[in-house]
């Protein structure tokens, strides 16, 4: 199940994403939470300390390439196999949730 969560800044989307992640993990699902916000706070909302997050690895921009579909929509695609990425950038969060911080979305296409 893949769930994307959107909304205006300050709407509470990060709190919702984090709480759904924790609840679903407690229900026995394997949960991967991806922070795609350039102002990242999903980790803290999941219950990680800011110390734990300070030096946490972020999936770098150069792991991602831009692709366009036939309607001109721009998408990102990984250059690296997912399993490798996960092993390298996955961060353990409470209740067994796995967190991944994705960098560079904001400035994508700029360089």
């Amino acid at each position, binding site marked *: 199940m893949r769930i994307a969560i959107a909304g205006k800044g300050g709407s509470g989307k990060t709190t919702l*994403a984090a709480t759904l992640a924790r609840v679903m993990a407690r229900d026995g699902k394997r949960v991967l939470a991806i922070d795609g916000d350039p102002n990242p706070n999903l980790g803290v909302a999941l219950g990680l300390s800011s110390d734990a997050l300070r030096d946490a690895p972020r999936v770098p921009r150069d792991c991602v390439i831009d692709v366009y579909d036939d309607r001109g929509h721009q998408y990102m695609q990984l250059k690296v196999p997912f399993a490798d990425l996960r092993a390298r950038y996955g961060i353990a969060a409470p209740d067994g949730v796995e967190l991944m911080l994705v960098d560079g979305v904001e400035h994508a296409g700029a360089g």
Partner: protein
Amino acid sequence: MRGLASALLGVENEVTLLDMEASIEHLSRSTPQGAETLLVVVEPYYRALETAGRIAPLGRELGIPRILAIANKIRDEEDARVIREYCAAHHIELAAEIPYDESVRDADRRGRAVIDHAPESRSVKAMRGLAAQLA
């Protein structure tokens, strides 16, 4: 496979939750085509409603099959009514109404997860209900 999170998809029997960028112009950019569900979090005031009203059609255009509005920070019946009416007028399914809850702000101030800080709070209960609904 297309899209960042569809590339980040991993195994079938797991849940991937993507906390997306706030700004609407990045939606197509950072949204997985492989997402089955788009939750659009909306608060009961005009600009938040307007943002949701722009996100939902974009999600449809991207081919996301299930687009659900989540009303958040609902203080009273009037808040709920405003969002229900907006969603009905814009053909967006409203999946949950999460009450305004001081414990969310309180948890945030302390840098804690609300589910740890106030596990029995009304907002956590509402979000648990939503999780059950999505599963």
